[in-house]
């Protein structure tokens, strides 16, 4: 299957490659340089730069209004940048019309043409490229097989489920072998089970065809599941780019820490620095340690972040725990089967969440209002400066 549907030239794109010189095989397919889009005073995209490697699946993750879709639309050619460059294979395409970019796109809303059959929809990109009819039919069959809908060619889009429609939309975007595939929250309208099924499908096709994909989503779980790398967008800027593990373990700022996964945030200020560690005094008076990754001066107010699963609960009398420790009372207690989540209110009134997995040894459950110590290792702590 791989050899017949792979991108190794068996399905030529059917468009003249135009002025494209001998295709350089640089590692980066797409480079965005200082890209901005302003609407009056509003900076929808504010000086964004990033590289997408050939064959990579990169997600643009962020809340709505963070600039991810606007950036995608500029790559597709539906929006014109206020400033900056978009390079594909080292050529600036920011002034090229969408139809000449040889980019595929799957939209959030179903955009199969309702008056055409599935086969006509999928063959549409070849039809407008004036590919001969028998060849279109052959390639349509092949790509419908790829998305496992080979017997649906004669149906109308209205006769398909939402998930099937998005798979057909994917086939339509793949049939002309675009150099880049853009997906704008393509599963946003589907229910959870179907979404996961099609996520697997997308992963499979990505591996099978080696196609470079940019995937826009606001769903962090989807981003973790699909991506080689994730670009986190915040307020028109890129907050951080990296592999999922990197973003989770080494968030560059409080926004990334809060957006990806669950986090605890406590406020405090730097007391002293020594031996690559900061002593931080928390609001409730307790003192904790954190790795000194950033250069911060004493008295600098900071936000102290750690993950709920990195902390453990102990009786106040126990002293065997980790370096860092705060004391409080349990205010919430949720049993989740494989784990339990506790909410602890500290003396300063701040809330700390602790996720306690029920492994082979841990079986204890805690009761409400119990006085308890939360303890966590210093190297799991991230501190972010707070503007004074």
């Amino acid at each position, binding site marked *: 299957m791989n050899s017949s549907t792979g991108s190794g030239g068996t399905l030529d794109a059917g468009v003249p490659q135009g002025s494209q010189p001998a295709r350089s095989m640089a590692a980066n397919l797409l480079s965005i340089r200082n890209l901005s889009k302003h609407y009056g005073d509003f900076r929808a995209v504010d000086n964004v730069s990033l590289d997408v490697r050939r064959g990579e699946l990169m997600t643009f993750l962020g809340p709505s209004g963070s600039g991810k879709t606007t950036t995608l639309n500029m790559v*597709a050619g539906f929006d014109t940048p206020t400033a900056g460059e978009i390079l594909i294979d080292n050529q600036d395409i920011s002034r090229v019309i969408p139809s000449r970019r040889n980019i595929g796109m799957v939209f959030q809303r179903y955009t199969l*043409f309702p008056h055409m059959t599935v086969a006509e929809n999928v063959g549409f990109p070849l039809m*407008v490229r004036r590919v001969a009819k028998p060849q279109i039919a052959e390639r349509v069959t092949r790509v419908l097989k790829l998305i496992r809908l080979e017997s649906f060619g004669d149906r109308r889009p209205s006769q398909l489920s939402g998930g099937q429609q998005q798979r057909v939309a994917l086939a339509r975007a793949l049939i002309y072998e675009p150099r880049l595939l853009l997906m704008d929250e393509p599963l946003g309208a589907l229910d959870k089970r179907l979404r996961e099924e099609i996520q697997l499908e997308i992963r499979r096709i990505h591996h099978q065809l080696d196609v470079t994909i940019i995937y826009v989503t606001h769903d962090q779980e989807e981003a973790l599941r699909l991506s080689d790398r994730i670009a986190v967008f915040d307020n028109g800027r890129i907050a951080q780019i990296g592999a999922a593990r990197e973003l989770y373990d080494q968030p560059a700022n409080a926004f990334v820490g809060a957006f990806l996964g669950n986090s605890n945030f406590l406020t405090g200020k730097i007391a002293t620095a020594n031996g690559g560690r900061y002593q931080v005094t928390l609001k409730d008076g307790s003192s904790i340690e954190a790795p000194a990754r950033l250069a911060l001066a004493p008295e600098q107010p900071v936000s102290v972040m750690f993950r709920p699963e990195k902390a453990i609960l102990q009786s106040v009398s126990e002293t065997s725990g980790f370096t860092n420790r705060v004391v409080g009372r349990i205010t919430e207690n949720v049993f989740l089967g494989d784990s339990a989540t506790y909410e602890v209110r500290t003396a300063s009134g701040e809330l700390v969440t602790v996720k306690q997995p029920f492994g082979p040894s841990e079986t204890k459950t805690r009761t409400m209002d119990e006085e308890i110590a939360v303890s966590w290792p210093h190297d799991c702590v991230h501190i972010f400066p707070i503007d004074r």
Partner: protein
Amino acid sequence: MLLTLQRMGPGRYVLYAITAIAVFYLLLPIVFIPILSFNASRWLEFPPPGWTLRWYEQLFTEEQWIGSIWNSVKVAFLVTASAIVLALPAAFVLVRGKFLGKTALNAFFASPMIVPVVIIAVALYGFALQWGMAGTLFAFVISHLILALPFAIISIGSSLQTFDIAYEKSAMICGASRVQALLHVTLPSIRPGIIAGALFAFLISWDEVVLAIFMATPSLQTLPVKIWVTLRTDLSPVIAAASSLLIGMSVLLLGISALIKRTRK
């Protein structure tokens, strides 16, 4: 539902009666005129003393009647074609355009529906005389076009309004030029609006009489004008036959449009 027929009790028979009267009132001319057209009497007599096809024979053999039918058909087709050709770009501008005074322009395009027809007629008549166009096919077409255009623009515009522009975008990212996207995606999608607009335009021209009376000369008349002129000189049942032809054509077109709607579903 608060007000279902079952809950209304005997009161619902009042509703049935009112509905029946309304239907009867609306149907009366449509039924009455065709019956009279088969009337054997020389006068428009009711109930008819006997039946005949004589009046239809006269309608389809007398040169003046045939000529007026043919004129009506020609004018209606030309009006339909020009209305669609002009309404398509106008609807695009009104729906897609972003410019100052768009709302005003929208209202302006609807103005022929508000301005009394007789005023349009007088104005056009003045022009037609000055330019020596009275009694030409062209004069009929442009005057009917004024009435037909708002309907064509509105029906095309409303189907363009509901058309999701994302379809066009996805056609273009698939490699379609603007023209290809328009021809293969946009136009087929708004076809119901275009067909509705065309039917409106045809029907408006087909039974229009006020403007046509002003533009007509004894040598060039449309069917409604010929009916009107004949009516003033004698009350022959041929008029009923001609009227039945007008009604028949309108009913036929409405039937076709209903059929198209059904097969699309």
